[in-house]
């Protein structure tokens, strides 16, 4: 296909307009999610066939209320539309508006129209029109807004074909703006601006001078002109306010003649739900119940597929050993690669379930009510109501959670949120907790229906939140950061979540995790296997040494093999590393084998289980095909003769993993979002000390 047959489409709209549904309808599974170069804003693109020879390349830009950005995500929208050399600079803009909020949604539309790029207006959710008593005169509206309008309901697949047709014929679209705003504000000022940048549309020049950011695509002389115009900041601010007021005037005038709502038909379901869900008592009770349900769900439902995956990989490993010729390569596959992949796959059930819940809460509009309900409380801790979303997302993964903190208006509240999010129990901690809890907490029911292990898991979650909140209060009082707070959130109407949207979201997030974190886990597992199955000269002579030691005892062949295997592990490279740190970790109740797991989970905590799997796999004889859990339960502490993973050691490990900052990915994202190494280092050191001290105390309390 030649380049001429590609139409570049930018999908833009306010949040909660069903933009994502439309994107999913247009592109289906032909989507790819990447990152914009240099920044970590997700770039969602997809292909859509328009005719036999033409296809559209659709970019789903982050949702925004206005072209004037207040966050990094929104800055991106502006940059895409102003920089003609940007590879996603559109041939045609598709603006999505929600029919119920058409007035506010049209503000962005009139701004975009001024850029003189061909624009299509999609009025979404038209299936609600009758029920809500809405009447709209499309022909007249098209004429007044100088645009092509497509009535659509992305969820019901209405209007999709018509939209494709309109995109295909984008060259015939009008580029005339709606009204002449600049004349109304200050004719003289804007004619000066026009003369300064004769090469740009006037509104583009206006946007260039009103933003605080530097635009890389401008020439040196253009940049100087921009700086000169920006000097009169007072005037610019006043004109921006005026601009918004005039735009609404135009929109009101247009809608007066073309749009009306028969209020008698409106039902007040929203009001009723709001009164219940934001009630000063019921609101919190419902929120707590939802959280409880989510956590019980993750622990209870996810264990079935997880056990299955665990067993499947254990038997795959031994099957591989039995069919492949003995040797180094087989060992690498069976003891390094397969357990490594298993260690990644085992996360999928929990991550998928968590993201399903989170996206349901967001899709229904409930999340905004939580923000509303929690803002005052969170502010007492130094955060914002909007911090609730990062903190909940943090239960899946801290990396997207820290990115989700971008819409927090105040820098101080945002910084604190970023710093404390890694305390929340992310899904990488889950397998560590899951295996430890299974080992030390009995599988019993209390009150007849609550699983004791599930309750312990919930306690671990609460501990994570408590640590986040306590450190937040601390930071709130210690940090001296000046910042203006801006808190405006939309309370969207309640919606029944779309299964399709949730499905795409879950698939995408899970995929990102598996391929992102999975690579690290797999690589570390292989390195670990290598370090565990190689060593200095004592390692190579293991067999001779052990045989010589037991010469006069009457050992069974099986026993002898076991002795050799554990002697080997002890004298491998990783064994020496574990032994080296043993004195330091002994106060927490750990031995050198757990030390190995600690070292290897320094970069990513989820490696813990895989590391133990590798260690005990290498350690055990070939016939032992039990799961990781069985092998850990069978491990004996030679000093006490009791189980290695007894209650004190297990609790100490739980506490250590709850507090320690063992995630390279999070440190990297914090560096990027705060633009400084100081904050990630503070996390690494602060959380590390806290983890160590708490683990020592825990171990001593319980032993």
């Amino acid at each position: 296909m030649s380049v001429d047959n590609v139409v570049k489409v930018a999908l833009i709209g306010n949040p909660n307009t069903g933009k994502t549904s439309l994107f999913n309808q247009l592109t289906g599974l032909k989507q790819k999610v990447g990152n914009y170069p240099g920044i970590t804003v997700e770039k969602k693109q997809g292909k859509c066939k328009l005719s036999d020879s033409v296809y559209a390349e659709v970019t789903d830009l982050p949702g925004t209320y206005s072209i004037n950005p207040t966050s990094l995500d929104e800055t991106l929208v502006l940059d895409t539309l102003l920089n003609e050399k940007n590879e996603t600079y559109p041939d045609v803009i598709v603006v999505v508006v929600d029919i119920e909020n058409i007035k506010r949604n049209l503000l962005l539309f009139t701004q975009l129209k001024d850029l003189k790029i061909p624009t299509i207006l999609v009025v979404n959710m038209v299936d609600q029109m009758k029920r809500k008593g809405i009447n709209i005169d499309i022909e007249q509206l098209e004429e007044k807004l100088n645009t092509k309008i497509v009535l659509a309901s992305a969820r019901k697949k209405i209007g999709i074909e018509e939209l494709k047709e309109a995109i295909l014929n984008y060259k015939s679209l009008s580029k005339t703006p709606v009204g002449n705003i600049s004349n109304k504000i200050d004719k003289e000022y804007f004619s000066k601006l026009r003369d300064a940048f004769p090469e740009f549309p006037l509104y583009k020049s206006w946007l260039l001078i009103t933003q605080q950011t530097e635009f890389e695509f401008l020439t040196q002389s253009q940049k100087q002109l921009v700086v000169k115009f920006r000097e009169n900041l007072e005037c610019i601010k006043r004109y921006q306010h005026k601009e918004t007021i005039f735009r609404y005037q135009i929109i009101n005038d247009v809608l007066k003649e073309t749009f009306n709502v028969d209020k008698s038909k409106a039902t007040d379901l929203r009001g009723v739900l709001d009164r219940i869900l934001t009630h000063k008592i019921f609101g919190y009770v419902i929120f707590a119940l939802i959280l409880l349900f989510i956590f019980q769900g993750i622990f209870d439902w996810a264990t079935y597929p997880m056990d299955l995956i665990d067993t499947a990989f254990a038997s795959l490993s031994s099957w591989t050993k039995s069919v492949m010729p003995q040797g180094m390569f087989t060992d690498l596959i069976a003891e390094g690669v397969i357990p490594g992949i298993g260690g990644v796959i085992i996360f999928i059930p929990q991550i998928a379930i968590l993201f399903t819940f989170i996206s349901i809460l967001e899709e229904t509009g409930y999340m905004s009510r939580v923000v509303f309900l929690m803002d005052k409380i969170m502010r007492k801790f130094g955060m914002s109501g909007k911090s609730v979303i990062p903190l909940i997302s943090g239960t899946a993964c801290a990396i997207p959670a820290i990115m989700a903190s971008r819409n927090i208006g105040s820098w101080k509240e945002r910084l604190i949120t970023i710093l404390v999010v890694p305390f929340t129990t992310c899904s990488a901690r889950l397998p560590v907790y899951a295996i430890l809890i299974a080992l030390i907490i009995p599988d019993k029911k209390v009150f007849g229906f609550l699983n004791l292990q599930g309750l312990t898991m919930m306690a671990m979650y609460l501990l994570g939140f408590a640590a986040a909140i306590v450190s937040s209060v601390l930071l709130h009082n210690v940090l001296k950061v000046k910042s203006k707070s801006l808190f405006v959130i939309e309370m969207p109407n309640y919606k029944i979540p779309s299964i399709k949207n949730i499905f795409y979201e879950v698939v995408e997030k899970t995929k990102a995790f598996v391929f992102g974190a999975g690579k690290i886990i797999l690589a570390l597992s292989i390195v670990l296997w290598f370090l565990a199955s190689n060593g200095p000269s004592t390692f190579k002579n293991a067999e001779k040494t052990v045989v010589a030691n037991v010469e006069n005892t009457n050992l069974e062949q099986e026993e002898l093999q076991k002795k050799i295997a554990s002697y080997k592990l002890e004298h491998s490279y990783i064994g020496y590393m574990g032994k080296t740190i043993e004195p330091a970790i002994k106060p927490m109740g750990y031995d050198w084998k757990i030390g190995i797991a600690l070292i290897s989970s320094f970069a990513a905590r989820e490696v813990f289980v895989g590391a133990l799997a590798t260690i005990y796999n290498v350690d055990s004889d070939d016939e032992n095909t039990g799961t990781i859990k069985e092998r850990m339960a069978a491990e004996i502490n030679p000093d006490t003769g009791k189980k290695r993973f007894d209650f004190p050691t297990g609790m100490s490990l739980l506490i250590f993993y709850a507090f320690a900052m063992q995630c390279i990915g999070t440190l990297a994202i914090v560096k990027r979002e705060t633009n400084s190494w100081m904050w990630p280092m503070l996390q690494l050191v602060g959380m590390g000390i806290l983890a160590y001290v708490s683990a020592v105390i825990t171990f001593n309390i319980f032993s």
Partner: protein
Amino acid sequence: MFGTIANLRIGEKAFIEKLCLDKIPLKLLEMGCLPGIEVQLIQVAPMNDPLYIKVNGSHLAIRKETAEKITVVK
């Protein structure tokens, strides 16, 4: 009668007076909080903050400190 949005009772409606533009963030205007527009206080969060308002067809939540800066005429 004059007051601010923060003085409204739940369910009460009023008109936004001519805004003192310097104190109000642009974003609030863009979300539909404009002079002369009717505003209704829908709900108040526990501990009386933030406030849930309906203005210009939009449902928004703003903090009390912001609401106190928007004067209204009943």
